[in-house]
């Protein structure tokens, strides 16, 4: 049961196509797991549809022969093959698997100390996405962030000053929040974390390491 959802601003930004790539990735991954947010997203899409339908006249005329051109293209193009059904039932939903190149076993982790591991995902540089692996019971170093940080649980669970977050839950942390996520006992916790600014660790050593860890 997912209890922590996307907010309207993220859903609307995703629907309008205005988010950085890393944000698109985490929104698409959460929606893959959450029907409530999928319905909310489709209602924001409906806003786009209503705006398109009600564009003030005159709308832009198409070229005189544009319909013929499109029909000619359609007749020449064989129907696209049905997309292969993607594998299901893994830890990562399909959009995330596309970035990792597979499920959990395909991740190339790098240790960041304290048993915590991370893997940075290839996205445009206006925001960053990484996977975090936190052994059960361990903490992610106490940190604040200069911008917004989104954390989506994919396996296990964590707890911080705000609440408990289980699989599918997304924490939306603003600049003000200083928190220490601790993986709950039991399964090791895997999260997708996205920030629109580099993380700022509060203790001295991690801050020195930050350039080397690329976070």
């Amino acid at each position, binding site marked *: 049961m997912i209890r922590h959802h996307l907010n309207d601003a993220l859903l609307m930004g995703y629907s309008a196509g205005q988010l950085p790539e890393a944000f698109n990735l985490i929104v698409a*991954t959460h929606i893959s797991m959450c029907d409530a947010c999928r319905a909310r997203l489709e209602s924001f899409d409906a806003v786009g549809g209503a705006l398109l339908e009600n564009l003030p006249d005159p709308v832009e005329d198409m070229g005189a022969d544009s319909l013929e051109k499109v029909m000619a293209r359609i007749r020449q193009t064989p129907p696209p093959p049905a997309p292969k059904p993607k594998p299901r039932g893994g830890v990562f939903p399909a959009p995330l698997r596309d970035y990792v190149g597979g499920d959990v076993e395909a991740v190339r982790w790098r240790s960041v100390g304290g048993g915590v591991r991370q893997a940075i995902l290839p996205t445009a540089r206006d925001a960053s996405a990484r996977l975090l692996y936190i052994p059960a019971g361990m903490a992610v170093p106490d940190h604040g962030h200069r911008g917004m940080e989104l954390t989506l649980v994919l396996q296990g669970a964590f707890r911080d000053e705000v609440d408990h977050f289980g699989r599918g839950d997304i924490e939306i942390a603003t600049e003000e929040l200083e928190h220490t996520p601790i993986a709950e006992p039991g399964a090791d916790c895997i999260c997708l974390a996205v920030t629109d600014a580099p993380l700022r660790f509060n203790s001295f050593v991690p801050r020195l390491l930050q350039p080397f860890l690329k976070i």
Partner: protein
Amino acid sequence: MLQLLDQSPIKERQAPPPGPPGAGGGPHTGKVRDVSQADEAQGEWVAQVLRVAQKGDEAAFAELFAHFAPRVKAFLMKSGAGAALAEECAQDVMATLWHKAHLFDPARASVATWIFTIARNRRIDALRKARRPEPEDLPWGPEPEPDQADALALQQESTKLGVALARLPDNQRVLIEQAYFGDLSHGEIAKITGLPLGTIKSRIRLALEKLRQAMT
């Protein structure tokens, strides 16, 4: 009665009751005829897409093209595309409509909404060159015989949403247009609140739940 049902495989069902009591009364009585006309148009577009999907009906496609291609072109130009690029992309969008018509689900989106999502994706490819990963597809497409009452209700909600948006205060509506057509930062989007999405949201949620029940 809506054209939605003509020659479409949608199951016969009793039409849902008209909107909430008094919806047509009050200060907006003048709008009622417009709304029912808009509903009828919604149903007409749905029927055209289904004809394209099932029979490759070129006349139905031509009608969709005449109505939607100029809107898609205008949408792309408002988003910063030049006329030539917008024309080319609008043609792409309409060709995609033809090829993906079988994926359209009238219980979850109006035709305008579905075309908006295709146009938005095309715009992101053409203008922003950024990737926009899509959510995992539901493990099934639309039902082969979409439920008529669900489709009808969703199309009516779409019309109502359009009317509600048109009635928003100008400054708010302009912000929303900027968010969808222009470039509004995430922070600016966060300031927009109070979009009238309640009913359509629950309607789509219901359609998703029914799909899951029907298909699992």
